[in-house]
């Protein structure tokens, strides 16, 4: 009984670890986890699709998170999301076909006084607007092309 408990305890942690390594949860890894922990694939799949941080598809090289917490919403976060969708020509939760950019909305990164906030590859951009976002994106596109 005790052993089963330990197994259960670490399932989410195991998925977090996989995602940290690969950037997403590849399907074959999910199968491995199911075998390793002695649970059904459906169980692992259920957990992986339930929680917000898990992704089943790879991210773009530049990962853009637009904060949609309450403070960011009031300060116009939605306009920034719309600008991002327009500029990148993808919807929230998608990755561009060339795998360069991916877009995600997150619920509060905890810097409400800097709202609205965009996080690009872990760098926080405070007080965004559609225009500022476009400018920052141009910078990233140029960097991409150089490299």
């Amino acid at each position: 009984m005790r052993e089963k408990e330990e197994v259960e305890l670490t399932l989410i942690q195991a998925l977090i670890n996989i995602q940290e390594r690969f950037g997403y949860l590849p399907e074959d890894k999910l199968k491995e986890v199911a075998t390793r922990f002695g649970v059904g694939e459906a169980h692992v799949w259920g957990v992986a699709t339930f929680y917000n941080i898990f992704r089943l598809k790879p991210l773009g090289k530049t990962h853009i998170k637009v904060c949609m917490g309450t403070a960011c919403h009031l300060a116009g976060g939605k306009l920034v999301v719309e600008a991002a969708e327009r500029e990148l020509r993808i919807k929230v939760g998608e990755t561009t076909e060339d795998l360069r950019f991916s877009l995600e909305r997150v619920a509060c990164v905890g810097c409400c006084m800097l709202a609205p906030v965009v996080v690009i590859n872990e760098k926080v951009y405070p007080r965004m607007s559609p225009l500022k976002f476009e400018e920052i994106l141009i910078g990233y596109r140029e960097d991409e092309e150089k490299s």
Partner: protein
Amino acid sequence: MTFEEIKNQAQKYVEELNSTTNIRIGTPTCGRAAGALEVLSLFRRELEKRGINLHLIEVGCFGLCYAEPLVTIFKPGFFNVVYGNVDPESVGRLIEGYVEGDDPCLELALGTLEFNEEGAPYIPEVTRFEFEKRVLLRRCGIVDPANVWHYIGMGGYEGLNRALKMSPKEIIEEIKRSGLRGRGGAGFPTGIKWEECAKADSQVRYVICNADEGDPGAFMDRVILESDPHQVIEGMIIAGYAVGAKEGFIYIRAEYPLALRMIKHAKKEAEEIGILGENVIGSGFSFNLHVVEGAGAFVSGEETGLISAIEGRRSEPRVRPPYPAHKGLFDKPTLINNVKTLSYVPWIMENGAEKFSNIGTSKSKGTAIFTLAGKVKYPGLTEVPMGTTLKTIAYEIAGGAKEGKKIKAIQIGGPSGGCIPEDLFHTPVDYESLLSLGSMMGSGGMIFMDEDDCVVDTAKFFLDFVQKESCGKCTMCRLGTSQLLHMMEVITKGEATKEDLKLLKELAEDVRMGSLCGLGKSAPNPVLTTLRYFYEEYLSHVEEKRCPALVCKDLIAYFIIPEKCDRACEHCKLSCPVEAITGEKGQPKYIVQDKCVKCGTCMKVCPPEFRAVIKVSPIEKLKDLDLRKE
């Protein structure tokens, strides 16, 4: 080591620190976003270049988030000075001025840092401290969160030491006498919860610290974990000893990487000096702590949902009873408390129940912590005695609205809370008063709205959030919230009727009745409170197709006033992302409404001396404006 030995060593460290000039820089998540790490590395480089050797300490959040990055220079024999909004340019000036010289650089200072007779820090020059009472936050922003000696030197683990000399029963009595109630939102008396768990018949018990702070707009748990993690661990050990649990779990969202790192580090430190693990400071009691990463689901904050998450399943709440105190984690009796609740415990053990129950109101004891965000001058974090009025918090502490605007309402407690209008700001904050207004204490996030914010749109925003976060177990929550959201969308599009508003209220009540856990039960609160206090605004949307705050996209349009347009300037035309603005050079610019995506860029870029771009609602109004032009 005995506790006396540990304490001696800690005091030696603190004495040594206090006898030399030292610099403390706030590097919590919010400080980092404001550029604290750049300031830190610049300080490091400059000090090295000048050959100055002193303690440069990374501390947590002091609550004055509007002034980040925050730097404090402690100088023996001189005033300790706090500097706000420190930018890389001022680093050299501060070192030359106050580290090397005796010029406190007052033009960059927020004020001096003083400590009151209870040891809580305050800045006399900043008004908000007159209204605050710092219990949980008394060390935040002062203590080095990554150094257990600093914590102990400032009185840390004193409460644990005292508790371990008492019997578990005595501790529970003490907590009961203090009147402490759960700070997770519902306000259940903590002592009774502990007693229930301790009484449950089992060999194995668990303690869980709920650090799954999911409310979008609240961050006090994160601040405590990042700024004073040992306080939480101390509370957990005392709770474990009191209820007879040898294992503790702290569940932190993976979205809080810094908090995770801090708590893991603190755990290691506490283990190394024998405060955690086998035989806690020689008492014979053993306590192991496990740090569990959460994967992001709002419903995990519900206690039975959180238990499911630790067990590695989807965090679907369970039916209560049985309560976790009887049958919780792995079906064993489990005590589950919020970060703040547990953090009060060491203070109560150190200072006694009476001192705690002397703070606050007759039914709500102690202090309350709120995050202040939205349209106020001084966003941040505050700790006030229970019973402080909303007015004091809004105007004295948060500084009121920005730039000559007016505060319209406060949304308290996020998606589970309610929207309270300005004319009720005389209400004191305590569990019962907030409930009577249809809101709740909730997590303690306060979002301030001014006249530019639409309450209908905000209610829709929260519904959208809970609808996405509903785990799907209860039909009323799963389908009810999605239907509510749909109705709100219809309203904000101006396609609803007055009849729909009645239905909206009815369905909101049904969702509340038909849901199992707190998420579903409180999900309709934002809708119900806004209907109650801002019915007029709903009516404007429905009957006039007008959004009074000019927010709801489908009901507004942008318009360039030809007389005000400079004509020669092309800012709006060049920055429009969809090329919806026409008009030759020298001619007034004109917005092609069919192309306009209403992003507001033209309004932002129109130079302030013209202010030619306006928003109008209802869209019908455009006709009049256009006619006038011709």
